[in-house]
């Protein structure tokens, strides 16, 4: 992909790719929620309110590090929400707190209306988690890994076996059902983790850096899978430090920097705030980027200058750099 080129071209190529991988939407099977309606209202919202993940003033301090400094996020049902930030921004910490692996220092989190500290069991039934590090039982088979998950989530044996076949087919791993996990490739393991996280039919899927360490083709395959899961009605919360991943996948993006959300909006709106066109040019102390509303403005600007420059469309990376105040050196 030509990263510095026109992002619209990138996008349409990826869409073709998506179609190629087949958006077969086995919708009902993947959102068969049979949750009982409950009337507990610890989070001051009814179960039908339009917030799937609600994070209020979340703070996490490790001994010396302030990993999260008051994060507020509301994720709507059915959207892909990307949590974007550099290494060490606090992305994993947020997911770990939301999924009960780490204790928050303060703040509250609700998933589908269930408070993760006060209604632990119900909250945990609402989501599936694909953590950053691969956490499969390598010695066991694909099938055995999935069966154990099904039991952890109180599924019936008959339901487990039918879901396993459907999901392995969905992530294109059916022929690996009886293989030991350690014989799978990295991309296959990722897809298996996604299948496992979906086994119990969660409403929310947490994906922590789902494509890190994968080659470009496999990455796109995972992207296509994520889109496919969204069309099944599942809300997706994903972290990434690949900006183009967020740009391609997300309905809304939160920029996280040093434990703070510095911006939260749709990728289009975040980019619009800067303009539509950008010129990168060499100046004395490095690179400078100048933004313009129209291509004409940009071209007019350049006729006045003689240095080397690149004219391109504004992308999400510009918005991120602008907001975090980091200059490309």
């Amino acid at each position, binding site marked *: 992909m030509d990263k510095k080129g026109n992002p619209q071209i990138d996008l349409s190529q990826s869409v073709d790719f998506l179609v190629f991988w087949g958006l077969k939407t086995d919708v009902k099977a993947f959102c068969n929620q049979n949750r009982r309606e409950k009337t507990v209202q610890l989070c001051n919202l009814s179960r039908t309110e339009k917030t799937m993940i609600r994070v209020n003033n979340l703070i996490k301090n*490790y001994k010396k590090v302030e990993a999260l400094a008051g994060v507020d996020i509301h994720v709507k049902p059915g959207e892909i929400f990307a949590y974007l930030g550099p290494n060490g921004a606090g992305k994993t910490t947020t997911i770990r707190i939301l*999924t*009960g*692996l*780490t*204790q928050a220092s303060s703040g509250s989190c609700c998933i589908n209306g269930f408070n993760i500290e006060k209604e*632990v*069991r*119900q909250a*945990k*039934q609402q*989501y599936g*988690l694909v*953590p950053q*590090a*691969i*956490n*499969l*039982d*390598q*010695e*066991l088979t694909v099938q*055995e890994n999935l*069966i*154990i*998950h099904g*039991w*952890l*989530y*109180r599924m019936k044996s008959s339901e487990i076996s039918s879901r396993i076949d459907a999901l392995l087919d969905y992530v294109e791993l059916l022929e690996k059902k009886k293989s030991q996990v350690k014989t799978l490739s990295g991309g296959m393991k990722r897809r298996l983790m996604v299948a496992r996280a979906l086994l119990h039919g969660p409403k929310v899927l947490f994906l922590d850096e789902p494509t890190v360490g994968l080659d470009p083709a496999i990455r796109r395959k995972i992207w296509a899978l994520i889109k496919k899961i969204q069309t099944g009605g599942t809300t997706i919360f994903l972290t990434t430090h690949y900006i183009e991943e967020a740009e391609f996948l997300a309905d809304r993006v939160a920029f996280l920097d040093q434990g703070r959300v510095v911006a939260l909006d749709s990728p289009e709106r975040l980019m619009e705030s800067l303009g539509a066109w950008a010129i990168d040019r060499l100046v004395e102390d490095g690179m400078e980027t100048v933004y313009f509303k129209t291509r004409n403005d940009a071209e007019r600007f350049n006729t006045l200058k003689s240095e080397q420059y690149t004219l391109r469309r504004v992308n999400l990376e510009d918005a991120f750099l602008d907001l975090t105040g980091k200059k490309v050196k």
Partner: protein
Amino acid sequence: MIHGIIAIYFREMLILRRRLTRQIPSWSISPFLYLTAFSYAVGHGVEIEGHTYMEFLIPGLIAMSSMTQAFAIASEINIARFYWHIFEEFQASPISKVSYVGGEVLAGMTRAMLSILVIMALGFLFGVRLNYGLAFFIALLLNSFVFASLAVALAMVVKSHADQSMLNSFIITPMAFLGGTFFPIDRLPSWAGAFLNLLPLTHASKAIRAACLNQPVSIFSYVLLFAIGVLFFSVAVRCVEKAKD
């Protein structure tokens, strides 16, 4: 609750099944060495309370092995936690802390029982006939319950796998040698005997030996082991929360 226990237990058993062909030789090697070394080199002609040294030693080995094998679940838990990150899968799932501890403790007890079968078979080959009755099995179960629970508790509070092996050398190895396994503790000075009487393994070897040799069993040892086991189990349940960072 049952679902969670089954899930955790079933996982450990699947892993154990894969390793069984390697486990059985490793379970048999040290008892085999002890039996050969002690019985032929040391124990010849030695008699303790009217029994041959072999008859004295095998129940001790059984107590020791059920302890170490039940405790070995700690290493399994740690590998799953620090190396494979599988513990996160359990933490994220809606099972209770009691289910988690219950499943792991049962797995530890199962390992202990299987390793004992190996020693019983070895003893049989060495021509030692002992009474493996109900009292014997209850004592064995209680001993493995105590140490599997301790193992889960400690596995939850350690911060790395290296800490775990330190615990092994400070708790398990000394207890294995001093807990009335290789020699009767009443031959020691009274202060030492009093101290060793505080160790759960001392009571377990007493109870197991008494049962094997058809001596009168002390109900106190059974009650004590049970109480310690329940205590360790509840500590383990509380420690699961501590495993969050």
